[in-house]
């Protein structure tokens, strides 16, 4: 009798296997059935329509100097662009590629240093008491205020930009990783040590996976601020890159290129943070499955 009670409980609690793909398809179909995509379309139409009308039809004051909708998109997808930049020119991809390379260097370096540092800061109280105040003293200085110093310290035009981008990511990653370790319920590490885990094993099996959700939140923020500082760095110093493109296009009075640069930045920035999110979901299957049940 006891056994039957136990077994039914066990049987009902195991649901059908939830896969990421299946879940995505399901969400897509419910999304299409809701009014949301159509409202979204209306929203886009309003913004783009206003842009078009204000600049190119009504020629409102102040708007008339701005590059218009058709001018920008005409240039962007032109096989023979007037200002020499469109999806058909290799120069466009050079700018994107160089920005991406800088982001990749800075982000990987910041993750490689920031995650371990944050883990140790959260794990060892002594270490935290020594290092964290120093960290807190340096953190309020805006990343951009480091620009001249970075130019002085690092030779050339490439490393200052990468350094600035790294610095922004590094602070975000370290801080969030540390908060992640602090957020872990004490009973997990207690349970692990009860079960015979050594201090190192607790670190490996409890601290690292337990901090994972915060680490990935940190990485999301990190990639955002990386783009933020990259653009600033590229605008002030450096050659090539999307920030540089925007700034020089302004100097050269090639206004449509400014907007092309901005939109491209938005797309590339969005894609890179989406990649971080996908990687996070992949590494944290347990969270994906828990959340799937909540839906």
């Amino acid at each position, binding site marked *: 009798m006891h056994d039957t009670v136990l077994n039914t409980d066990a049987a009902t609690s195991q649901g059908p296997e939830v896969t990421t793909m299946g879940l995505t398809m399901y969400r897509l179909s419910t999304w299409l059935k809701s009014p949301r995509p159509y409202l979204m379309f209306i929203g886009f139409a309003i913004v783009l329509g206003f842009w078009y009308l204000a600049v190119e039809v009504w020629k409102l004051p102040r708007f008339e100097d701005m590059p218009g909708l058709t001018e920008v998109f005409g240039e962007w997808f032109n096989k023979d662009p007037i200002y020499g930049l469109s999806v058909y020119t290799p120069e466009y991809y050079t700018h994107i590629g160089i920005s991406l390379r800088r982001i990749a260097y800075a982000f990987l370096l910041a993750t490689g240093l920031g995650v371990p540092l944050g883990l140790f800061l959260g794990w060892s109280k002594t270490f935290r008491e020594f290092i964290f105040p*120093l960290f807190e003293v340096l953190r*309020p200085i805006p990343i951009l*205020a480091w620009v001249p110093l970075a130019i002085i310290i690092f030779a050339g035009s490439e490393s200052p930009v990468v350094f600035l981008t790294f610095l922004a990511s590094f602070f975000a990653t370290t801080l969030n990783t540390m908060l992640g370790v602090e957020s872990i319920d004490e009973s997990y590490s207690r349970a692990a040590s009860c079960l015979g885990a050594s201090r190192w094993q607790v670190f490996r099996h409890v601290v690292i996976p337990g901090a994972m959700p915060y680490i990935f939140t940190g990485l999301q923020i990190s990639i955002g601020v990386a783009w*933020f500082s990259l653009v600033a760095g590229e605008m002030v110093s450096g050659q090539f890159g999307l920030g540089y493109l*925007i700034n020089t296009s302004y100097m050269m009075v090639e206004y449509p290129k400014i907007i092309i640069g901005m939109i491209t930045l938005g797309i590339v920035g969005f894609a890179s943070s989406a990649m971080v999110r996908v990687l996070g979901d992949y590494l944290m299957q347990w969270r994906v499955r828990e959340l799937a049940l909540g839906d």
Partner: protein
Amino acid sequence: MKQGRFIGKLFSRATLRGLFAIAVFILIWEVGARSEQWLGFRMPYLGLIPPPTDVAASWAGLIGDPSYWQSWYMSFLRVFGGFLAAMAIGIPLGLFMAVNKTFYGIYFPTFEIMRPIPPLAWVPASIIFWPTQELSIAFVTFLGAFYTIVINVLGGARSINKQYLQAAQSMGASQWDIFRRIVLPATLPSIVVGSAVGMGITWEVVVAAEMISGGGSSGGGAGGGLGFFIWSSYVGGSYEQIIVGMISIGIAGYFSSELLRQLGGFFTPWLKTR
């Protein structure tokens, strides 16, 4: 209580350790910066920056200089101008998006698409659009804080416990009452958080905008601000002043966030009980 003293005791040890680490940091910096003079060889990186004692001396000289304080004033003015504008527009917008589903459906995707564009990428477009440089800086500053504030307000308002709303309804509250007495106060903590984060971004943007506009062709000390102070120190070759400027901005940013936190605590007294 008893626990307070316990924490206080711990804190003092932690404070000592923190101060020790900072002292070591400054010492390494001093030695590194003076390595050529003291040790006979130039330490990589550190050897290129001015030593902390020179920075302090330079700072002492600047304390009496009104143009240095003018820079503080200009930056604060820009930060609070842009920030208040972002609050004034961002909070109602966030609340309205939380309350009205149709508006949310229309506007939110556009908002999300614009958000990944870093605020600084707007600088040239903003200079073209706005008649004065001051307005264009203000606009970019506004953008920096705006996204964060809207996202936080929206998140806060949407996560209100439904039972609060039901309780209010069952006690006969009108729609307006519910908004004013439930939605608004329940969102306040998120508004405070969003503002604190937004404040940090605002300082980043102001510094950058001051540097970009000052470093550009327009020049002239009229624009001013701490970001410009740093940039002109760099251009003028007085490297100590760069660091003075960095520390000044750090202090200014810290106090702005602290002010917001205190203000936030004042407006959300119920969060203090724990």
